[in-house]
């Protein structure tokens, strides 16, 4: 079995200037704070970050925005982090707002080999600007292209050493689709267990999708 367990330093070596990162989490719930801190420490520049939100000042993806490492935010909501709004207003950071369900589907499409998703969400709104529309059975839909990333950073509640992941409660959010839509997938294991200790019934992200595991929690 390939050893996927790496140090935080090694994991962060995969985050390079200008790369795109999917960050699992919803207002910080399910975000790898270890990786966020390591990226800030490394000082990588001009990142594109993709996720539900930019959490809060000093929390989750918000740490990257506050450290001015981000050139483009693709998110559904930025209202909880005033720094993101300020950088958007000043023109420092580009912000693309995407409906939450559409973002999940755009990421899912990328991960599942689909050319686009066709959704009624956003028809007749600013979201539709520049997008192709289709009429199916008399109803209008938007054609939403897939979204991929260079790296996905996830946090699992229980991860086995092969990389199978279980997410507790509402920490699932975007993580399952993100695990399929990035070239490199890094998972922080809140609790790391031996292969065989995680019941296959509870696995939400299959090990084959995970490239690197960093050990979080109490170690």
């Amino acid at each position: 079995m390939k050893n996927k367990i790496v140090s935080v330093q090694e994991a962060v070596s995969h985050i390079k200037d200008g790369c795109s990162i999917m960050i699992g989490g919803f207002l910080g719930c399910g975000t790898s704070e270890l990786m966020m801190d390591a990226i800030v420490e490394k000082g990588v520049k001009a990142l594109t970050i993709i996720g539900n939100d930019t959490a809060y000042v000093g929390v989750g993806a918000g740490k990257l925005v506050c450290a001015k490492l981000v050139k483009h935010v693709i998110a559904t909501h930025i209202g909880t982090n005033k720094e993101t709004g300020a950088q958007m207003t000043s023109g420092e950071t580009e912000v693309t707002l995407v409906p939450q369900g559409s973002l999940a589907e755009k990421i899912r499409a990328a991960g599942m080999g689909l050319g686009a998703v066709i959704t009624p969400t956003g028809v007749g709104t600013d979201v539709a600007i520049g997008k192709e529309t289709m009429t199916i059975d008399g109803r209008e839909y938007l054609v939403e292209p897939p979204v991929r990333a260079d790296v996905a950073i996830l946090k699992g509640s229980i991860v086995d050493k092969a990389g199978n992941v279980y997410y507790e409660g509402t920490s699932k959010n975007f993580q399952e689709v993100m695990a399929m839509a990035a070239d490199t997938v890094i998972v922080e294991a809140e609790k790391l267990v031996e292969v065989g200790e995680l019941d296959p019934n509870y696995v939400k992200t299959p090990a084959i999708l995970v490239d690197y595991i960093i050990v979080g929690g109490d170690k």
Partner: protein
Amino acid sequence: MASAKEIIAYRVAQDLKDGDVINLGIGLPTMVANYIPEGVEVTIQSENGILGMDRVAKEGEELKDVINSGGQPVLVNPGACYFDSAMSFGIIRGGHVDVTVLGALQVDEKGNLASHVVPGKMVPGMGGAMDLVVGAKEVIIATTHTQKGVAKILKEITLPATAVKCVDKIVTELCVIKVTDQGLELTEIAPGVTAEEVQAQTEATLIVSENLKTMAVPAE
């Protein structure tokens, strides 16, 4: 006396039916949960991945990794379940939510809704709102009738749309309005308020229902 928000939340709750799956927006819509009539059991969906959400957790009660879509730690009811965002919005877009209750900045005669952005002033993002109003079977707007005297119920929205032709009903502290193909039908007015008074605070033209009723309000 009940506040405007309490009156609105109470009235919206009276429309809920036993067995409904509902999603409540942040702010005023959340208060609807406080007034669900006796004998009516609803399942509350939270778009970050819960069906069967209960109330906000008190300090010390928090569950591990369980929050609502506003980021507050919450409790869940027996029989609740958690799922990821793709499933959550599949439930929403796929028509498996009976009622969504949201606030509004503006709403118009065609049922167009503006609820998520004031260009140059407030640009937080739409979150799940665009999917909710497109996907839920019934869209109820719970809002104060005006914004400090400035009309919110308009002939045509002027702010960017959250969705077009999506609103079914508008509940304010003054009245209940049904969105129909003919326009906005005034179906209920609060005790002590006249239809003329409601019209005076509404830019859109209201069609007064032949069966105009008095709106149910919370008991003193």
